[in-house]
């Protein structure tokens, strides 16, 4: 139940209008025949890099990845000598489609009222015509986790692909797991600055008690409902069935070791599957992560060190250190504002001069992120049987000079134009007309 993959291949009319902003143009047509990417350097991520390899996909699914030349048959062939093929980047945590303009409340659908909302899920509110989707995918981000925000239990996480006519098209997995903001003590700095408030420890205890009450009540409800179907239905607890059963994970937002020390045994005792988002201090609780075999999505390398004495490079060094510590990790960005989601690959790249290999950096924003979201059977690497959700670039995508030339989502060749490229073209034309363009 947890993975409801949409693989619909209805034939659609192609309306090619590449100079218009993507939010005004139709989504890509379904793949109407096999496609062969020929002679490219194929970065499978799951396995070796294949120089001069071929990749064949049909019906949205990769049929073959080969170092040998594949028979083109009826496939449309892209001759890609000197080009590189990568699986689409996977942004583990985002609010893509839920937020349009950060400062305009009416464009924000991230946070339902109240503190505990397991009944809500993100996919249903993702706006397929959001300006953010085409802007984000232009830099190779083709898959994302969408996280409700706010309160103790913000709701259920969905995973989406960044092309589709409707939110149903976009959704890869509507119910990927339950987001929980694990209770945090306010930092001393925060308390000092804000003048105190209730005692940090008491507050944390109270909130953990709230979580206990929720999970106990849900378990009691499930037992009752299963024994007697006339028990009235509670949507919150129904939504928690796969969580309680350990089928879908809880995504815990955790920053400090103190939180991890409280949360991981709590989850283990209840038999929950766990993934952690945030992970600022993950190195300090690497032992817990390894012992409990829990993956962590690190929020951003482009952050300031949180303490004065820490190395200026603390956030850049973290990924390599986690790798060395044997932690399952991926790199993500702060979910609150996803307007900069297109910079995901640069966040990963920033760790490379600080000990991470480019291959490790690449995995952290592809396969590792897919594993974090539980969709690694479908996306995150270039393997037979996975979605043809990938892009073609003229070089190393971490380099700022590299251009992404083609991108496919489930085999559909998507447009790489958007509102921003349209505005660029429009005003370039203005100055061209007026003869004031000194360089064109």
């Amino acid at each position, binding site marked *: 139940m947890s993975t409801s993959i949409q693989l619909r291949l209805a034939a659609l009319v192609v309306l090619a209008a590449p100079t218009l902003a993507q939010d005004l143009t139709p989504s890509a047509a379904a793949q109407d025949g096999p496609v062969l990417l020929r002679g490219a350097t194929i970065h499978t991520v799951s396995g070796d890099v294949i120089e001069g390899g071929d990749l064949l996909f049909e019906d949205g699914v990769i049929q073959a990845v080969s170092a040998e030349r594949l028979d083109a048959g009826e496939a449309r062939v892209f001759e890609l000598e000197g080009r590189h093929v990568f699986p689409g980047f996977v942004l583990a945590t985002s609010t893509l489609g839920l937020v349009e303009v*950060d400062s305009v409340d009416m464009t924000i659908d991230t946070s339902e009222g109240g503190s505990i909302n397991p009944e809500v899920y993100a996919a249903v509110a993702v706006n397929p015509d959001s300006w953010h989707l085409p802007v984000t995918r232009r830099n190779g981000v083709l898959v994302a986790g969408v996280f409700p925000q706010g309160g103790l239990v913000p709701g259920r996480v969905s995973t989406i692909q960044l092309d589709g006519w409707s939110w149903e098209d976009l959704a890869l997995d509507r119910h990927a797991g339950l987001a929980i*903001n694990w209770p945090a003590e306010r930092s001393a700095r925060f308390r000092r600055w*804000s003048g105190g408030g209730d005692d940090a420890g008491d507050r944390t205890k109270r909130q953990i008690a709230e979580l206990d009450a929720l999970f106990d009540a849900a378990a009691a409800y499930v037992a009752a409902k299963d024994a007697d179907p006339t028990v009235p239905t509670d949507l919150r607890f129904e939504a928690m069935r796969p969580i309680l059963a350990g089928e879908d994970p809880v995504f815990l937002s955790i920053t400090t070791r103190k939180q991890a020390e409280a949360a991981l045994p709590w989850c283990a005792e209840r038999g929950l599957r766990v993934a952690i988002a945030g992970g600022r201090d993950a190195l300090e609780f690497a032992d817990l992560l390894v012992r409990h075999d829990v993956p962590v999505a690190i929020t951003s390398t482009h952050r300031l060190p949180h303490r*004065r004495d820490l190395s200026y490079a603390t956030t850049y060094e973290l990924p390599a250190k986690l790798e060395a510590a044997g932690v399952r990790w991926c790199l993500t960005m702060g979910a609150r504002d996803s307007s900069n989601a297109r910079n995901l690959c640069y966040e990963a790249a920033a760790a490379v001069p600080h000990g991470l290999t480019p291959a490790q950096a690449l995995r952290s924003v592809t396969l590792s992120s897919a594993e974090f979201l539980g969709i690694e059977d479908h996306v995150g690497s270039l393997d037979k049987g996975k979605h043809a959700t990938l892009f073609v670039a003229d070089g190393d995508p971490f380099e700022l*000079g590299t251009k992404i030339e083609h991108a496919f989502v489930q085999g559909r060749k998507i447009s790489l134009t958007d509102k921003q490229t349209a505005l660029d073209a429009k*005003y370039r034309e203005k100055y061209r007309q007026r003869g004031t363009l000194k360089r064109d």
Partner: protein
Amino acid sequence: MIRLFLVAALVAATPAFSPLLAQDEPLRGPRKIDPRWHALTHARLIPSPGALVEDATIVLRDGVIVSVETGGEAPAGARVWDCSGLTVHAGFVEMYAGVEAPLPDATGLGGYWQSEKVVPQRSALDGERLTDSEVESLRGAGFTAAAIAPSDGVLGGSSAVVALGAGEGDVAAATPEVIEDGVYQTLAFRRASWGSEGSLAYPNSEMGAIALIRQALMDADHHAACLAVDATEVAGHEPPQPNEALDALRRGGAPFLFNASSELQLLRAARLADEFNRPVMVLGTGTEFRRLDAVLAAGLPLVLPVNYPEAPDVSTSMAADAHSLRDLATWEHAPSNARRLVDGGATVALTSAKLDDRGDFMAGVREAIERGLDPVEALRALTVTPARLLGVDDRLGKVEPGRLAHLVVRTADPFAEDSEIRDVWVAGRRFEIEAAPAPTHEGDYAFRLETEGGPIEGTLRLKSSSSAEVLVGEDSFELDDLKVGPQHMHFHLEAEALAPEGVFSGTGLFEGEAIHGSLVGPDGAMMRWSATRTGDVPDEEDEEDDGEADGDDRSSGEDVESDGEAEEPEASLEDGPLPLPFGAHGLTAYPDAETVMIRNATVWTAADAGIVEGAVIVVQGGKIRYVGPEALAPVPGGARIIDAQGGHVTPGLIDCHSHTGISGGVNETGRRVTSEVRIGDVINPDDINFYRQLAGGLTAANLLHGSANAIGGQNAVIKLRWGASHPEDMKAEGAMPGIKFALGENPKRVAAGTDRSDEYPQTRMGVAALIEDRLVAGREYRESLERYAALSEWERARTMPPRRDLELEALGEIVAGERWIHCHSYRQDEILMLARLAQAFGFKIGTFQHVLEGYKVAEEIAEAAVGASTFSDWWAYKFEVVDAIPHNATLMSDVGVNVSINSDSSEHARRLNTEAAKAVKYGRMERAEGIKLVTLNPAIQLGIGDQTGSIEVGKDADLAIWSGDPLSYQSRCVSTFVDGRELFSLEADAAGRAAAEAERQRIIQKLLKKGSKPKMSRGSWGRRGGGERLADRDLARFRDELEDLWRSGADPTLSRPGVCGCFDVLYEMAATRAGSR
């Protein structure tokens, strides 16, 4: 007036009661007379610091010291106080004791001046004075007089020195309370509190408070000048209005006491003192050692608290992690603060202010002495120096004839560990602090018990008030249930020698050296006994003699620590230079400009030469001396050769929009136009983000006011001179003065967030009108000054001078082309509006900042402004930026605009090189042009393009060395030079991190060994220092706001571009919501 009276009293030796002192109420019943005529005899007198008179006789009469003699005799009639074995010194003088004083009547003369924070006409004597318990706690610490001062306000009013104890008791007349009125004016950079005066009261930033003070002092001068004109010629102008506030600030009046809440504030106050040539004293924070050299160079008299921080909690490793080295080392060094400042030649007074509990004061002073402060200097800092600073040194501070009778009588030298105060004399009246302990009767006594069988003799050994034994021949008997009082003793005795069974019950009466007692046997028969003291109880073992009070205060240092914990003074700790900025990565000495040759590098010149492979750069005297092929390079003697190993060198990066290192608020939101405030007044060189940005190759930045106001504050262009001594040293020489403007949503939102429905501007129309109006006003202001300057001297003496107005002055500079606008802007309409306005006025705009729709009106920008400074790719965070495109930089550049890419974020500023690379990515800009976006172009936009921003001979040696292509993610900054000084390098960084960690662990170990309990509870940092606390309801709301943001993943330490600092966003959010509710 009072002072005159005192002198007269002395000369005339008038009767005891002053005819000038009012009696509050008519007498009830007979008078109660206190002759106030005393002689303290046989005292060990410290008449002034460093002096000593044994066996002194001090005669006090009518509140004045009449005579001080060695030996001498008490005059007949004086009440005699035997001070044998006691030490007498002058009463301590407290320089600051805050009191509440009511605000003056708003309708009074002059009313409030601009703000109720400016009330210099107010006096500490207007209000309730010190509470009885405050007075008692002061006297208990040895203070006999205190300068009381209004505890709030920016210019909060005047202080008076009062005697601590006047009016107490029931004698017929009070002693004089006020020793001197108007001894100083209080000064503080206090901000309007949130909420209580509307969230947007002025000033709500530190720079706003400074601007307010400057304007007030200028107005005082202006007021005086107007009065002078009016005195010369009454006709031809309207009469100047009486103004008590401005009168109170007149020149030649009292000095200022500045209440600092940080050592940086102290330096800011020193700048005010210089600018206005006004005497300023500083009530410090105890952290002056963190900027020691600059504080000493400021040369201001210092009033230092002893509010050392509590021992940081390092009980767990997690708790220890929460403390920075800066905090840990501050704890360690704080007790040395006074010593360092005294050694450095500063004038130092000590104060009990800023302590939570004044009972900790003497322990704090003793700790300073343990850490090297000369006890003589400590005494001076509590007597002579404060008396002098308060202008009462002819009356207080020493024990000399003619001075006021303010004395402390104590058991030992003032700072000896076991020195107890017996009495404090205030204005010739005695206040007992701690009575001498009752005499003890311990000792050996020869006793004789009369029994029926004849006398029994032996020794009674009274060991303590509860332990004694009787020794008779070889036998000894313990006395049971012994109780020894001042005059009596009671005990029980079981002694087989006297009776085989039963208990004897005894009593004794002490009479001098003798005891006379009785003993009642089990049979009820009473026997008499008596005893005579023969001497002390002999030592049973080799007792340590540390119980002896030897009066040597220098030895007292070691006694402060309990046994076994006595620390060896750490010579290196006390004498070594302290790092600047204090904490990790601080420099103990700012480096000299190096002579350097950088070879084997690809040089991005950001000049006509473009990108040159294999070039050599020679740096000398802070300047670039040579760029070119190695073969032709001069090699100055002593040059350090840096092999870049195939790396790249760029000019130091320049950030044209930064809010890093600004103290006390980035926005002044108390007014809609704040051109009078200056970021340059509040530079915080301790901000660790400067170091982090150096690590990203940044060497200069444009520190800007926030975007809350249509017309904001003045900018400061700085170089990242990490480790420089004074905040002023950060400023880049020769930069064009600038000012922040802001269009669109931000100023609208802030104005709409106030509680006034007519607040301006709430639309882009209003923004345009407001800016036009203020520019006109600035121009007309300048014209009025010019007209006045053109008058003859004769005319000027008869013409009211124009008021110097800091707001209009800056606006006038803009119109005159002397100050460049850096304008926060987004939409093309507003950009065009300001461009046209500037053109109409005939001045050039500096930069449009953010300017995310700049690509739509690039031609107009190229014409009207020096440049445009934008983000690489931020968008969609507000409605007005939905049309932002990452091609903006390139497109504007392609139309001829000078474009820079800025950070507006302490975090982005660490990686402007890859931000610039995004312009290459999105717009296919040439790589050599791309680097100019963050080097030469911003330099030009800040008016320092001829000094820095490119690698050309003669320019400042501001350089960044990279491990590879600076536009590639694979590269990192290896070394950063500012003015030819290497202020960052990977090697130095690694060494600095290791050193900081070792230092942290050393201090943590020290704390762990001490045990986690703080030795004494002390004042906490900043709580009483400067800013006021938020009102509770605002706190609650604000906490929630932050909490939400935090929960949702935003870290308050992470500032976001485009919104001018995270806290400002929160502020604006809070303000907006307050308005909408």
